[in-house]
């Protein structure tokens, strides 16, 4: 929560996120706060859509945590599709885990499935670079 607020406060100035982990957003309010706070930011946001019962998601958790620690300039958040079904629906999540990469409030990339190399590659690709990076790739 503190992260979301610090993100919001630091938003327009391109501050790097202080935390090095995955932030879980459990309520609509938390989601709104964090998401809106990132809209004007150049910082890459990675949304991990998963579910508490999802084995494949669990199998991938260590890898995601490792990436969050490694890429401290990227904001990693976790959304449970049962806790926030309207958000999952808004992002058209049908399989899990799904990782949606956002920059300046727009989707720049997406990975479906526990795919370590692909996630790491795309995070690396999008974390720096211009805000004009506006690919809307839907990974089938």
């Amino acid at each position: 929560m503190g992260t979301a607020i610090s993100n919001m406060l630091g938003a327009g100035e391109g501050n790097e996120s202080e935390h090095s982990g995955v932030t879980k957003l459990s309520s609509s309010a938390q989601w709104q706060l964090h998401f809106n706070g990132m809209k004007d930011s150049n910082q890459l946001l990675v949304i991990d859509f998963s579910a508490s019962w999802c084995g494949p998601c669990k199998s991938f958790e260590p890898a995601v945590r490792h990436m969050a620690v490694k890429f401290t300039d990227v904001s990693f958040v976790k959304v449970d599709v049962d806790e926030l079904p309207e958000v999952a629906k808004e992002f058209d999540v049908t399989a899990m885990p799904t990782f949606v990469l956002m920059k300046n409030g727009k989707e720049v990339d997406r990975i479906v499935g526990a795919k370590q190399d692909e996630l790491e590659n795309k995070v690396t690709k999008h974390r720096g670079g211009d805000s004009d990076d506006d690919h809307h790739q839907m990974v089938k």
Partner: protein
Amino acid sequence: MHTYIHNIQNKHKLSSSFSFHYACNHDFIGLLTRMLLLLYTLQNLSYKYHFSSTSHHYLSLLSLQTHTHTHSSALFLLQLSLFCYIPTSSSDLPMAVSGFEGFEKRLELRFFNDSITNNNPMGLRLIDFESLDQVLNEVQCTVVSAVANHSFDAYVLSESSLFVYPTKIIIKTCGTTQLLKSIRPLIHLARNVNLTLRACRYSRGSFIFPNSQPFPYTSFEDEVVIVEESLPKSFRYRKASVMTPSNSNPSRAWHVFTASADVEPDETLVVVEVCMTELDRVNARSFFRRKGDEGNSDSAGKEMTRLSGIDMINANAFICDFAFDPCGYSMNGVDGDRYSTIHVTPEDGFSYASFECGLSLYDGGHGDIAEVLARAIDVFRPGCVSIATTYNGEDYDHEVTKRVERVLAKKLGLKCRSRLMDEFPGSGTVVYQSFTPRRK
């Protein structure tokens, strides 16, 4: 001499084994044996030897000329004759002495669904991942990729695939894995989420390298004993069968063991298991990693899916793919509650590909079974194909069998060489067909 030392360390994350393989013109083992015999004779006798290498067609054939100087010339001549008797041409030895075993062992466990409710629909999917991972460790494989949808969880393993449905688990593993070690722990984990075993099915083809398998996989009788020991004694309906075509060359039998608590099959989908060997070499090349592909197994896998045409077998399915290093490919397809899976060992000498899916015979939107099979087999253009179809709860329909044979003959020039059928109480009818190209 070209000997390929194939490092499959990336393919098997838990083991670091090496395997040799060679293409048909090379004769490494013959050479090795001759060298060993030579060293043995040199220890006891002193002779002058003259070696010459013969033509480059048979790169490692050696001819031996000797001059004897001692009284044990008879002994020497005996050793020499043994030495020369060792088969030297590729036609006398199998294509490869040892290589990666593509043929899978498949285990299916089905559970009673009385504890599945609308409020609690997840069943086996509630088993925590750490526990599943421990079972996979025992079997000697590990998860490399995974995806879940509302119907089931699909894991791509270092040695094939795992599917977890609310009341069904399917594990399919290749290489020299210890698949049957998973039965007891899985039954135990299922009991923890209030699920009771209803039926078990174990099946496999014939190994390319049967002597490389550990116990009990050296004999189907031993495997059956191990499975039975792991199951509840109350399972009244049991059957083991080895379906052996009388004319196939080499002999490729289909081994099935089923056991269930009741006689009526509960599964609604038909399961089709396709095993292909002698893959077309050009097609098989798609499944080797390219130099400079940035070491990304996921994008390499996606590229292979696209290039090979695997993405067109069922255009509706979401494909979770993975490319192994330096070669090899696995994918799980997810389409609603339907699964499919493909595994490829592309190396010449022991090339292998499998395709499996669960489907309904009267699918309409999902594609006719014969068309799906034709598309899958066309990706590989194999020299030898076998198809095992398990009807489960569906009534056996002979028209379907004949249609598959017609379509494969017409579209791929594959002639059905044998067709066998067997009934398994609690599991349904199994039809086993084998095909080779018409002009072979």
